[in-house]
């Protein structure tokens, strides 16, 4: 039974016609009315920058906010690998349907057919748009755009710009944004952090933001609000996300009534540089492309493992017969190219069994010796030279001589604010795009699909769908920021800040955040079970109390204060962590990035439970200290045959 609070607004009719049909229904706002309408966009990553630029160009009045000193520095800039699109340039029989199919399957049958089909449908236009902006995608000798392939698919549809695809795409969107800023249609507020959402008569009407330079708490009103604030992977403290990535804006919306969907679906990336001690605060991703030629292994005997840990032997000195290429052993069909979740769990399995190859016991080898022999130094250099160099800079060990050491780390969050087909949350007038929503990736995201989704949402979907809502609003006057709702929200923000500053304890924000990270990684990480998840909820509760008793945030609100910024974000990470654990506890199946130890086959593979869990789990906030309520949006597959993911044969 569909939940009356979750109306997904998926258009009727055949899959391939749904989006055209929806577009035809959407009411259009005339240009002179657009000028009367104001939209707030929070976030300047690929989602936010492309949305704000498009809305500005359409004629709306846009205000855009970000934490960094320039919109160009949003976390999206760090994406390396590429962006998918069903262009079929390689003539390998790619199509919209195939991209749709791969995405649903990769997501382990936990995403909406209609949304994913639309994503695949608009993907080709993204590439055209970016080329028109001058994004320097890699080209073949003859000048055609080049492609490469990524994990979990069998065609070559990934567009890229060296190892800097996110940077070049974001610079394209930022340039489009700059054009609108220069034209006056978009006003930019860098170094401004949203601290609350303002609701008037049940509709999103504005935000409260802190000017990070002066500490001033400011009010901003609009006719609609768009959140493009990214993912919440930093709940784990250590992740590949940028340091300022956080989940606070989504949590503010959640507390004001927006449902939060599938929080437990987090992606763990198998190829990151291992943690080197307890002083680290950020992990570095090594591109997935390395698995195309690198072979993953650990020794098959403890003797070698112990010698490696004591540096008595070099990995290259261990002969073939004493090595265990465990991915090739377990998954002969896909070998080292199994999807991210499978590769990550297999590494954990070996390390848990005691075979981890560094001092911490949490690392496996990624070896290029065979590739160098097979392809020659030059071709390996062409393909991976910059990655090798980056690895050597960080670890001072050369992948040309000894294998890389890698270990899984948190990378991306599939869960996020629940949105309908129009990308509207359960709060009218509040939209969520990019990594901040839950929409397209189900239980697991395929490589190179986040950039695609962010730009699809921002350039091609939101600018249309938000018009439907705004078409009813142009007669409404500008939002009055003197309204009592603004005063109330502002006061709540100031109270929270005051409360944090008043603790004056002994512990630093990071040291407490690290503890949260340990709880999350231990119990809500790569493998989860009922007892552990219950423990996580309890321990997070304890840690939250500890925070409010012991945290020390120096300085005042009325100044540039990075410790205060971090403390405010950490308060929300407690809530996110708890919600993730709750959702993971409820979802008694293994699916995509969510592995419940109770639900596995005899060989240790995931066991999905379609009968009981083929739904989106959306959580409704019920008040502080009260358990949230779960709502279920059933998923229907009418165009795809549901199957078990199989990467063995």
């Amino acid at each position, binding site marked *: 039974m569909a939940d009356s609070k979750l109306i997904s607004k998926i258009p009727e009719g055949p899959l391939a016609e749904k989006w055209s049909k929806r577009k035809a229904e959407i009411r259009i706002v005339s240009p002179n009315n657009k000028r009367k309408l104001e939209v707030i966009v929070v976030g300047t990553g690929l989602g936010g920058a492309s949305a704000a630029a498009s809305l500005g160009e359409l004629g709306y009045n846009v205000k855009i906010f970000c934490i960094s000193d*320039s*919109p160009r520095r949003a976390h999206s800039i760090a994406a390396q690998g590429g962006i998918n699109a069903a262009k079929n340039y390689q003539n390998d029989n790619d199509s919209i349907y195939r991209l749709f199919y791969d995405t649903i399957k990769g997501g382990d049958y936990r995403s909406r057919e209609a949304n994913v089909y639309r994503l695949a449908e608009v993907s080709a236009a993204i590439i055209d748009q970016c080329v028109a902006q001058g994004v320097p995608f890699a080209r073949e000798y003859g000048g055609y755009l080049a492609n490469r392939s990524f994990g979990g698919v069998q065609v070559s549809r990934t567009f890229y710009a060296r190892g800097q695809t996110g940077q070049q795409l974001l610079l394209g969107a930022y340039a489009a944004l700059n054009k609108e800023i220069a034209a006056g249609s978009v006003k*930019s507020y860098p170094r401004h952090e949203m601290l609350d959402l303002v609701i008037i008569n049940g509709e999103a009407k504005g935000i409260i933001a802190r000017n990070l330079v002066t500490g001033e708490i400011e009010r901003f009103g609009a006719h609609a609000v768009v959140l493009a604030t990214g993912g919440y992977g930093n709940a784990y403290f250590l992740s590949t996300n940028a340091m300022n990535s956080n989940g606070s804006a989504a949590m503010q919306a959640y507390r004001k009534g927006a449902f939060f969907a599938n929080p437990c679906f987090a992606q763990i990336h198998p190829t990151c540089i291992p943690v080197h001690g307890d*002083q680290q605060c950020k992990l570095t991703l090594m591109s997935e492309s390395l698995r195309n030629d690198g072979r993953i292994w650990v020794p098959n005997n403890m003797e070698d493992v112990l010698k490696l840990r004591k540096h008595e032997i070099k990995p290259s000195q261990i002969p073939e017969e004493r090595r265990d290429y465990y991915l090739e052993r377990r998954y002969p069909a896909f070998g080292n190219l199994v999807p991210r979740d499978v590769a990550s769990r297999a590494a954990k399995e070996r390390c848990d069994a005691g075979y981890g190859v560094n001092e911490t016991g949490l690392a496996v080898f990624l070896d290029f010796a065979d590739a160098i022999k097979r392809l020659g130094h030059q071709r390996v250099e062409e393909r991976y030279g910059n990655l090798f160099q980056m690895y050597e800079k960080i670890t001072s060990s050369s992948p040309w001589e000894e294998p890389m050491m890698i270990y899984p780390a948190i990378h991306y969050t599939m869960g996020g604010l629940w949105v309908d087909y129009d990308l509207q949350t359960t709060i009218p007038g509040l939209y969520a795009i990019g990594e901040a929503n839950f929409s397209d990736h189900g239980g697991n995201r395929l490589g190179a699909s986040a950039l695609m989704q962010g730009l699809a949402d921002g350039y091609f979907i939101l600018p249309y769908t938000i018009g439907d809502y705004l078409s009813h609003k142009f007669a409404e006057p500008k939002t009055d920021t003197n309204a009592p709702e603004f005063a109330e929200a502002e006061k709540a923000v100031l109270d929270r800040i005051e409360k944090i500053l008043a603790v004056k304890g002994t512990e630093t924000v*990071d*040291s407490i955040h690290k503890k949260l990270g340990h709880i999350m990684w231990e119990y809500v990480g790569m493998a989860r079970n009922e007892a552990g998840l219950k423990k996580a909820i309890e321990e997070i509760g304890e840690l939250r109390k500890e925070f409010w008793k012991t945290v020390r945030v120096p300085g005042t609100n009325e100044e540039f204060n990075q410790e205060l910024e971090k403390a405010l974000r950490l308060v929300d990470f407690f809530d996110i962590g708890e919600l993730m654990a709750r959702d993971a506890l409820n979802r008694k199946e293994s699916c995509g990035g969510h592995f419940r130890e109770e639900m596995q086959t005899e060989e240790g593979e995931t066991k999905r439970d379609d009968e009981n869990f083929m739904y989106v789990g959306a959580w409704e906030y019920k008040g502080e200290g009260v358990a949230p309520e779960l709502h279920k949006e059933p998923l229907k597959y009418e165009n795809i045959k549901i199957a078990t993911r199989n990467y063995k044969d």
Partner: protein
Amino acid sequence: MEYNVKVWRQKNAKAKGHFETYHVTDVEEDASFLEMLDILNDQLIRKGVEPIAFDHDCREGICGACSLYVDGRAHGPDDQVTTCQLFMRHFKPGATITVEPWRSAAFPVIKDLVVDRQAFDKILQAGGFIAELSMDAAACVGCGACVATCKNGSAMLFVAARVSSLALLPQGKPEAARRARAMVAKMDELGFGNCTNTRACEMECPKHVTIDHIARLNREYLKARFSE
């Protein structure tokens, strides 16, 4: 490992700044430079001293946020890296390391090591919005090391990276002249200095953008002036 960190402290844009020297202990051998600052901050907070403010985000050399002048060099004593890619193994244990913010009239200090680089956004808003760049020039991360290093405080390398490859890509040709004029005018207006070809910017650029692009910018600019 232990170090002495001599660092610029400045409460806000209006306050007068000064150097303070702090002793940092327990730095792991593999720590990065910014991790060393994290450790120092942790130790300072516990002692009741205000932590040192510095900009950073991606910590992998791509966002351009980190912006420190370390031992007299923008991004410190390693080549073609941003500060976040600098590692403590480049420093002798026990050494005294001097850390300053970017120093440029166009980049006023906000606090300690944090500067205001909005001038860069303003230059690009004046016309840098067809991203017409060849990949080499496009590698610019907008960190500002070029300005901080230049004795004239010139932003020529930054502007050149955006403008120079107009000739290299088909898009945006019709606006080329207007763009070059507008961006150079904006740069002058914002108080950046002139280029006298000392090449310091090229040496310190973490992404190795070369001054060949400045030559191309000059050509574009001259062409634009003639077409006025």
